Protein backbone atom coordinates (compact mmCIF):
# COMPACT_ATOMS: atom_id res chain seq x y z
CA UNK A 1 0.00 0.00 0.00
CA UNK A 2 2.69 2.48 0.98
CA UNK A 3 4.56 1.60 -2.21
CA UNK A 4 1.54 2.66 -4.24
CA UNK A 5 1.32 5.92 -2.29
CA UNK A 6 5.03 6.48 -2.86
CA UNK A 7 4.57 6.10 -6.61
CA UNK A 8 1.63 8.52 -6.68
CA UNK A 9 3.52 11.04 -4.60
CA UNK A 10 6.60 10.66 -6.78
CA UNK A 11 4.49 11.43 -9.83
CA UNK A 12 3.03 14.47 -8.08
CA UNK A 13 6.48 15.76 -7.07
CA UNK A 14 7.89 15.35 -10.57
CA UNK A 15 4.91 17.19 -12.07
CA UNK A 16 5.29 20.01 -9.56
CA UNK A 17 8.98 20.40 -10.38
CA UNK A 18 8.22 20.53 -14.10
CA UNK A 19 5.95 23.49 -13.31
CA UNK A 20 8.78 25.12 -11.35
CA UNK A 21 7.45 24.32 -7.86
CA UNK A 22 8.31 22.29 -4.78
CA UNK A 23 5.94 20.47 -2.44
CA UNK A 24 6.55 22.93 0.41
CA UNK A 25 6.62 26.05 -1.74
CA UNK A 26 10.39 26.64 -1.61
CA UNK A 27 12.59 27.66 -4.51
CA UNK A 28 14.76 24.89 -5.99
CA UNK A 29 17.90 26.22 -4.33
CA UNK A 30 16.40 27.23 -0.96
CA UNK A 31 17.08 25.55 2.35
CA UNK A 32 14.22 25.01 4.79
CA UNK A 33 14.10 27.24 7.85
CA UNK A 34 17.32 26.65 9.76
CA UNK A 35 17.94 27.25 13.46
CA UNK A 36 21.10 26.40 15.34
CA UNK A 37 21.43 26.66 19.12
CA UNK A 38 24.79 25.95 20.71
CA UNK A 39 25.84 24.89 24.23
CA UNK A 40 22.53 23.20 24.92
CA UNK A 41 24.07 20.28 26.87
CA UNK A 42 26.07 21.46 29.86
CA UNK A 43 27.80 18.10 30.43
CA UNK A 44 29.25 18.22 26.92
CA UNK A 45 32.29 20.34 26.02
CA UNK A 46 30.38 21.59 23.00
CA UNK A 47 26.94 20.95 21.56
CA UNK A 48 24.56 22.17 18.89
CA UNK A 49 20.87 21.60 18.34
CA UNK A 50 19.98 21.97 14.68
CA UNK A 51 16.46 22.35 13.37
CA UNK A 52 16.24 22.14 9.61
CA UNK A 53 12.55 22.36 8.85
CA UNK A 54 11.17 19.47 10.90
CA UNK A 55 14.46 17.59 10.90
CA UNK A 56 16.18 17.80 14.28
CA UNK A 57 19.69 16.75 15.13
CA UNK A 58 21.65 17.17 18.34
CA UNK A 59 25.43 16.99 18.15
CA UNK A 60 27.58 16.70 21.27
CA UNK A 61 31.36 17.05 21.49
CA UNK A 62 33.37 15.45 24.30
CA UNK A 63 37.13 15.59 24.75
CA UNK A 64 39.50 13.39 26.70
CA UNK A 65 43.24 12.77 26.63
CA UNK A 66 44.33 9.56 24.92
CA UNK A 67 46.99 7.94 22.79
CA UNK A 68 47.69 9.29 19.28
CA UNK A 69 47.74 7.10 16.17
CA UNK A 70 51.27 5.76 15.54
CA UNK A 71 51.48 7.45 12.11
CA UNK A 72 50.41 10.87 13.48
CA UNK A 73 52.11 11.06 16.91
CA UNK A 74 51.79 14.87 17.14
CA UNK A 75 48.13 15.19 16.16
CA UNK A 76 44.84 15.01 17.98
CA UNK A 77 42.26 12.38 17.00
CA UNK A 78 38.72 12.87 15.71
CA UNK A 79 36.17 10.11 16.30
CA UNK A 80 32.71 10.60 14.83
CA UNK A 81 29.69 8.49 15.56
CA UNK A 82 26.04 8.82 14.55
CA UNK A 83 22.98 7.32 16.16
CA UNK A 84 19.73 7.07 14.29
CA UNK A 85 17.58 6.76 17.38
CA UNK A 86 14.28 4.89 16.90
CA UNK A 87 12.13 7.80 18.10
CA UNK A 88 13.34 9.88 15.14
CA UNK A 89 11.68 7.79 12.45
CA UNK A 90 9.62 4.61 12.03
CA UNK A 91 12.40 3.47 9.68
CA UNK A 92 15.03 3.40 12.45
CA UNK A 93 15.58 0.29 14.54
CA UNK A 94 17.32 0.00 17.90
CA UNK A 95 20.70 -1.67 17.90
CA UNK A 96 24.21 -0.99 16.62
CA UNK A 97 24.52 1.51 13.73
CA UNK A 98 23.46 0.10 10.37
CA UNK A 99 25.04 1.16 7.08
CA UNK A 100 23.01 4.39 6.99
CA UNK A 101 24.29 5.41 10.41
CA UNK A 102 27.83 4.47 9.46
CA UNK A 103 27.62 6.44 6.21
CA UNK A 104 26.20 9.50 7.99
CA UNK A 105 29.00 9.45 10.58
CA UNK A 106 31.70 8.96 7.97
CA UNK A 107 30.49 11.76 5.69
CA UNK A 108 30.25 14.19 8.62
CA UNK A 109 33.72 13.09 9.75
CA UNK A 110 35.19 13.54 6.26
CA UNK A 111 33.83 17.08 5.99
CA UNK A 112 35.48 18.14 9.24
CA UNK A 113 38.71 16.19 8.76
CA UNK A 114 39.46 16.95 5.10
CA UNK A 115 38.67 20.66 5.36
CA UNK A 116 41.36 20.95 8.01
CA UNK A 117 38.80 22.87 10.08
CA UNK A 118 40.26 21.43 13.27
CA UNK A 119 43.91 22.27 13.83
CA UNK A 120 44.96 18.82 15.03
CA UNK A 121 48.59 19.84 15.70
CA UNK A 122 47.34 22.10 18.46
CA UNK A 123 45.62 19.15 20.11
CA UNK A 124 48.91 17.44 20.91
CA UNK A 125 49.66 17.32 24.65
CA UNK A 126 52.84 15.20 24.63
CA UNK A 127 54.15 13.96 21.30
CA UNK A 128 53.69 10.24 20.81
CA UNK A 129 52.17 9.85 24.26
CA UNK A 130 49.14 11.98 24.85
CA UNK A 131 46.82 13.95 22.57
CA UNK A 132 43.25 15.19 22.81
CA UNK A 133 40.66 12.77 21.43
CA UNK A 134 37.69 14.71 20.05
CA UNK A 135 34.48 12.70 20.07
CA UNK A 136 31.74 14.04 17.81
CA UNK A 137 28.45 12.29 18.53
CA UNK A 138 25.51 12.90 16.24
CA UNK A 139 22.11 12.14 17.74
CA UNK A 140 19.30 12.25 15.20
CA UNK A 141 16.10 13.29 16.98
CA UNK A 142 13.67 13.69 14.11
CA UNK A 143 14.09 12.53 10.52
CA UNK A 144 12.25 14.63 7.97
CA UNK A 145 14.95 14.44 5.31
CA UNK A 146 18.52 15.61 4.72
CA UNK A 147 20.17 14.26 7.85
CA UNK A 148 23.67 14.73 6.42
CA UNK A 149 23.46 18.54 6.15
CA UNK A 150 21.77 18.96 9.53
CA UNK A 151 24.36 16.70 11.19
CA UNK A 152 27.36 18.32 9.50
CA UNK A 153 26.12 21.79 10.43
CA UNK A 154 25.57 20.63 13.99
CA UNK A 155 29.08 19.14 14.11
CA UNK A 156 30.88 22.29 12.98
CA UNK A 157 28.69 24.57 15.12
CA UNK A 158 29.36 22.39 18.17
CA UNK A 159 33.11 22.20 17.50
CA UNK A 160 33.40 25.94 16.97
CA UNK A 161 31.87 26.55 20.39
CA UNK A 162 33.74 23.77 22.22
CA UNK A 163 36.11 24.39 25.14
CA UNK A 164 38.97 22.00 25.83
CA UNK A 165 38.54 20.80 29.46
CA UNK A 166 42.21 21.24 30.42
CA UNK A 167 41.43 21.98 34.07
CA UNK A 168 39.61 18.69 34.61
CA UNK A 169 42.75 16.78 33.59
CA UNK A 170 45.24 19.04 35.36
CA UNK A 171 46.57 20.52 32.11
CA UNK A 172 46.21 24.24 32.82
CA UNK A 173 43.34 26.53 31.97
CA UNK A 174 40.49 25.59 29.68
CA UNK A 175 40.99 26.71 26.09
CA UNK A 176 38.93 27.23 22.98
CA UNK A 177 39.06 24.36 20.49
CA UNK A 178 41.26 25.52 17.55
CA UNK A 179 38.69 25.72 14.74
CA UNK A 180 39.94 27.60 11.67
CA UNK A 181 37.38 26.96 8.94
CA UNK A 182 33.63 26.44 8.60
CA UNK A 183 32.95 23.59 6.15
CA UNK A 184 29.28 23.50 5.15
CA UNK A 185 27.54 20.44 3.77
CA UNK A 186 24.92 20.92 1.07
CA UNK A 187 22.92 17.97 -0.28
CA UNK A 188 20.80 17.96 -3.40
CA UNK A 189 18.61 15.56 -5.34
CA UNK A 190 17.88 15.49 -9.05
CA UNK A 191 14.16 15.50 -9.80
CA UNK A 192 13.07 15.92 -13.41
CA UNK A 193 16.48 17.32 -14.32
CA UNK A 194 16.39 20.05 -11.67
CA UNK A 195 18.78 20.35 -8.74
CA UNK A 196 16.73 20.52 -5.53
CA UNK A 197 18.72 21.63 -2.51
CA UNK A 198 17.97 20.35 1.02
CA UNK A 199 15.45 17.66 0.05
CA UNK A 200 12.71 16.91 2.58
CA UNK A 201 11.67 13.34 3.31
CA UNK A 202 9.22 13.16 0.38
CA UNK A 203 11.72 14.54 -2.10
CA UNK A 204 14.40 12.23 -0.76
CA UNK A 205 12.28 9.14 -1.31
CA UNK A 206 11.05 10.28 -4.73
CA UNK A 207 14.55 10.93 -6.06
CA UNK A 208 16.68 7.94 -6.97
CA UNK A 209 19.81 9.40 -5.44
CA UNK A 210 21.37 12.35 -3.64
CA UNK A 211 24.68 14.16 -3.87
CA UNK A 212 26.38 15.82 -0.90
CA UNK A 213 29.05 18.48 -1.41
CA UNK A 214 30.97 19.91 1.57
CA UNK A 215 32.76 23.17 0.84
CA UNK A 216 34.94 25.64 2.73
CA UNK A 217 35.21 29.39 3.26
CA UNK A 218 37.61 29.81 0.31
CA UNK A 219 35.19 28.01 -2.02
CA UNK A 220 37.21 24.77 -2.18
CA UNK A 221 35.46 21.42 -1.91
CA UNK A 222 36.61 18.97 0.72
CA UNK A 223 34.19 16.06 0.58
CA UNK A 224 31.54 14.59 -1.65
CA UNK A 225 29.26 11.60 -1.41
CA UNK A 226 26.66 10.19 -3.74
CA UNK A 227 24.07 8.01 -2.04
CA UNK A 228 21.06 6.05 -3.19
CA UNK A 229 20.46 3.54 -5.94
CA UNK A 230 20.20 5.84 -8.96
CA UNK A 231 22.67 7.72 -11.11
CA UNK A 232 23.49 11.30 -12.10
CA UNK A 233 24.57 12.76 -15.43
CA UNK A 234 27.95 14.54 -15.48
CA UNK A 235 26.12 17.82 -16.25
CA UNK A 236 23.79 17.57 -13.23
CA UNK A 237 26.78 16.60 -11.08
CA UNK A 238 28.75 19.70 -12.08
CA UNK A 239 25.71 21.93 -11.68
CA UNK A 240 25.03 20.51 -8.21
CA UNK A 241 28.58 21.27 -7.13
CA UNK A 242 28.25 24.91 -8.25
CA UNK A 243 24.89 25.43 -6.56
CA UNK A 244 26.08 23.67 -3.40
CA UNK A 245 29.13 25.90 -3.03
CA UNK A 246 26.91 29.00 -3.42
CA UNK A 247 24.39 27.75 -0.86
CA UNK A 248 27.19 26.86 1.56
CA UNK A 249 28.51 30.42 1.35
CA UNK A 250 25.06 31.78 2.12
CA UNK A 251 24.61 29.54 5.19
CA UNK A 252 28.11 30.25 6.44
CA UNK A 253 27.70 34.01 6.20
CA UNK A 254 24.10 34.33 7.33
CA UNK A 255 23.62 31.59 9.91
CA UNK A 256 26.86 29.99 11.11
CA UNK A 257 28.70 33.27 11.60
CA UNK A 258 25.96 34.35 14.02
CA UNK A 259 26.54 31.21 16.11
CA UNK A 260 30.32 31.08 16.02
CA UNK A 261 32.14 33.96 17.70
CA UNK A 262 35.56 33.86 16.04
CA UNK A 263 37.85 31.48 14.18
CA UNK A 264 41.56 30.75 14.49
CA UNK A 265 43.67 31.89 11.52
CA UNK A 266 44.22 29.06 9.02
Amino acid sequence: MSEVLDEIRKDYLFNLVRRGKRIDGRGFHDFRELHIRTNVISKAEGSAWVELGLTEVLVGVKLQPGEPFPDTPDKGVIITNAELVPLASPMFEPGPPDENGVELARVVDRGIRESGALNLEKLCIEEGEKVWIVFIDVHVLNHEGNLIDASALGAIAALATTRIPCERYGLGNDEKLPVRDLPVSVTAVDIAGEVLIDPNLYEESAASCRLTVISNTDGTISAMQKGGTGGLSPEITKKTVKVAVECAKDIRENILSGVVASLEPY
Partner: protein
Amino acid sequence: MRFRYNMAPFSVEERRRPGPDRRSVEISKVSREALEPVIIAEYYPRAAIDIFVEILESDAGTRTAGINAASVALADAGIPMKGLVSAVAVGKVDGQIVLDLMSEEDQYGEMDMPVAMVTRTNTITLLQMDGRVTMEEFDRALDLAIAGCRRIYELQRKALIEKYSESRAEEGGV
Protein backbone atom coordinates in the same frame (compact mmCIF):
# COMPACT_ATOMS: atom_id res chain seq x y z
CA MET B 1 21.00 -7.24 -3.94
CA ARG B 2 23.69 -7.62 -1.33
CA PHE B 3 27.29 -6.54 -1.60
CA ARG B 4 30.12 -7.39 0.75
CA TYR B 5 33.50 -5.73 0.43
CA ASN B 6 36.08 -7.41 2.60
CA MET B 7 39.81 -6.88 3.01
CA ALA B 8 42.09 -9.76 3.90
CA PRO B 9 44.13 -9.08 7.06
CA PHE B 10 47.39 -9.43 5.09
CA SER B 11 46.33 -7.19 2.19
CA VAL B 12 47.80 -4.01 3.63
CA GLU B 13 51.09 -2.84 5.22
CA GLU B 14 49.82 -2.97 8.79
CA ARG B 15 47.68 -6.04 9.52
CA ARG B 16 44.00 -5.36 9.38
CA ARG B 17 41.75 -6.85 12.03
CA PRO B 18 39.49 -9.37 10.26
CA GLY B 19 35.78 -8.68 9.93
CA PRO B 20 33.79 -5.65 8.87
CA ASP B 21 34.88 -2.20 10.08
CA ARG B 22 33.08 1.08 9.41
CA ARG B 23 35.09 1.73 6.26
CA SER B 24 34.09 -1.57 4.65
CA VAL B 25 30.45 -1.11 5.69
CA GLU B 26 30.41 2.22 3.85
CA ILE B 27 32.26 0.86 0.81
CA SER B 28 29.85 -2.08 0.61
CA LYS B 29 26.92 0.36 0.66
CA VAL B 30 28.19 2.74 -2.03
CA SER B 31 29.42 -0.13 -4.23
CA ARG B 32 26.02 -1.80 -4.08
CA GLU B 33 24.41 1.52 -4.98
CA ALA B 34 26.85 1.86 -7.89
CA LEU B 35 25.74 -1.48 -9.39
CA GLU B 36 22.03 -1.54 -8.51
CA PRO B 37 20.97 0.93 -11.23
CA VAL B 38 22.01 -1.47 -14.02
CA ILE B 39 20.52 -4.69 -12.66
CA ILE B 40 17.11 -5.55 -14.01
CA ALA B 41 15.85 -6.85 -10.68
CA GLU B 42 12.26 -7.30 -11.95
CA TYR B 43 13.37 -10.67 -13.37
CA TYR B 44 14.22 -11.90 -9.89
CA PRO B 45 11.32 -11.32 -7.52
CA ARG B 46 11.83 -12.83 -4.07
CA ALA B 47 15.46 -13.55 -4.85
CA ALA B 48 18.73 -12.09 -3.68
CA ILE B 49 21.90 -11.50 -5.65
CA ASP B 50 24.98 -11.79 -3.46
CA ILE B 51 28.20 -10.14 -4.49
CA PHE B 52 31.36 -10.86 -2.54
CA VAL B 53 34.46 -8.79 -3.15
CA GLU B 54 37.61 -10.05 -1.43
CA ILE B 55 40.60 -7.71 -1.47
CA LEU B 56 43.70 -9.92 -1.36
CA GLU B 57 46.36 -7.28 -1.90
CA SER B 58 45.78 -3.55 -1.81
CA ASP B 59 47.59 -0.74 -3.61
CA ALA B 60 44.76 1.84 -3.44
CA GLY B 61 41.72 1.85 -5.71
CA THR B 62 40.29 -1.31 -4.21
CA ARG B 63 36.65 -0.18 -4.23
CA THR B 64 36.85 0.75 -7.93
CA ALA B 65 38.64 -2.52 -8.79
CA GLY B 66 35.92 -4.38 -6.86
CA ILE B 67 33.14 -2.65 -8.80
CA ASN B 68 34.85 -3.34 -12.15
CA ALA B 69 35.23 -7.02 -11.28
CA ALA B 70 31.71 -7.33 -9.87
CA SER B 71 30.23 -5.77 -12.99
CA VAL B 72 31.99 -8.28 -15.28
CA ALA B 73 31.13 -11.15 -12.91
CA LEU B 74 27.43 -10.19 -12.98
CA ALA B 75 27.46 -10.21 -16.78
CA ASP B 76 29.34 -13.52 -16.75
CA ALA B 77 26.67 -14.96 -14.44
CA GLY B 78 24.07 -14.05 -17.06
CA ILE B 79 22.25 -11.48 -14.91
CA PRO B 80 20.27 -9.16 -17.21
CA MET B 81 21.84 -5.70 -17.04
CA LYS B 82 21.26 -2.35 -18.67
CA GLY B 83 24.98 -1.81 -19.08
CA LEU B 84 28.37 -2.45 -17.54
CA VAL B 85 29.56 -0.31 -14.64
CA SER B 86 33.14 0.91 -14.91
CA ALA B 87 35.03 2.63 -12.13
CA VAL B 88 38.28 4.46 -11.53
CA ALA B 89 39.64 6.99 -9.05
CA VAL B 90 41.13 10.36 -9.82
CA GLY B 91 43.21 12.42 -7.47
CA LYS B 92 45.38 15.44 -7.02
CA VAL B 93 49.04 14.79 -6.37
CA ASP B 94 51.56 17.61 -6.12
CA GLY B 95 49.04 20.02 -7.62
CA GLN B 96 48.37 17.80 -10.66
CA ILE B 97 45.10 16.03 -11.42
CA VAL B 98 45.97 12.39 -12.06
CA LEU B 99 44.14 9.17 -12.92
CA ASP B 100 44.12 6.00 -10.80
CA LEU B 101 46.08 6.70 -7.62
CA MET B 102 48.57 4.24 -6.13
CA SER B 103 49.00 3.76 -2.40
CA GLU B 104 51.71 6.43 -1.91
CA GLU B 105 49.85 8.92 -4.08
CA ASP B 106 46.69 8.31 -2.07
CA GLN B 107 48.53 8.76 1.22
CA TYR B 108 50.41 11.95 0.35
CA GLY B 109 48.09 13.35 -2.32
CA GLU B 110 45.74 16.25 -1.82
CA MET B 111 42.56 14.61 -3.08
CA ASP B 112 41.05 11.23 -3.85
CA MET B 113 37.83 10.81 -5.81
CA PRO B 114 36.49 7.40 -6.81
CA VAL B 115 33.94 7.49 -9.63
CA ALA B 116 31.83 4.73 -11.18
CA MET B 117 29.67 5.15 -14.22
CA VAL B 118 27.48 3.35 -16.70
CA THR B 119 29.34 4.37 -19.85
CA ARG B 120 26.50 3.35 -22.15
CA THR B 121 24.09 5.88 -20.59
CA ASN B 122 26.71 8.35 -19.32
CA THR B 123 25.36 8.03 -15.78
CA ILE B 124 27.50 8.42 -12.68
CA THR B 125 26.54 5.80 -10.10
CA LEU B 126 29.32 6.26 -7.55
CA LEU B 127 30.95 9.52 -6.56
CA GLN B 128 32.93 10.13 -3.41
CA MET B 129 35.59 12.67 -2.71
CA ASP B 130 37.88 13.73 0.06
CA GLY B 131 40.69 16.24 0.08
CA ARG B 132 40.67 19.88 -0.88
CA VAL B 133 40.18 21.11 -4.46
CA THR B 134 38.74 24.12 -6.27
CA MET B 135 35.60 23.85 -8.35
CA GLU B 136 37.64 24.14 -11.56
CA GLU B 137 39.90 21.26 -10.45
CA PHE B 138 36.83 19.20 -9.62
CA ASP B 139 35.42 19.73 -13.13
CA ARG B 140 38.70 18.65 -14.69
CA ALA B 141 38.99 15.65 -12.35
CA LEU B 142 35.48 14.48 -13.21
CA ASP B 143 36.18 14.72 -16.96
CA LEU B 144 39.39 12.72 -16.48
CA ALA B 145 37.53 10.08 -14.46
CA ILE B 146 34.87 9.75 -17.15
CA ALA B 147 37.55 9.25 -19.81
CA GLY B 148 39.21 6.66 -17.53
CA CYS B 149 35.92 4.79 -17.07
CA ARG B 150 35.53 4.55 -20.84
CA ARG B 151 38.94 2.88 -21.10
CA ILE B 152 38.04 0.43 -18.34
CA TYR B 153 34.76 -0.30 -20.13
CA GLU B 154 36.66 -1.38 -23.28
CA LEU B 155 38.74 -3.79 -21.18
CA GLN B 156 35.67 -5.23 -19.46
CA ARG B 157 33.96 -5.72 -22.81
CA LYS B 158 37.04 -7.39 -24.26
CA ALA B 159 37.28 -9.79 -21.30
CA LEU B 160 33.68 -10.90 -21.79
CA ILE B 161 33.99 -11.29 -25.56
CA GLU B 162 37.22 -13.27 -25.19
CA LYS B 163 35.72 -15.63 -22.67
CA TYR B 164 32.71 -16.46 -24.78
CA SER B 165 34.64 -16.81 -28.03
CA GLU B 166 36.94 -19.28 -26.23
CA SER B 167 34.09 -21.36 -24.90
CA ARG B 168 32.44 -21.47 -28.31
CA ALA B 169 35.68 -22.68 -29.84
CA GLU B 170 35.93 -25.46 -27.22
CA GLU B 171 32.44 -26.66 -27.99
CA GLY B 172 33.53 -27.04 -31.58
CA GLY B 173 31.52 -24.04 -32.67
CA VAL B 174 32.56 -21.31 -35.07
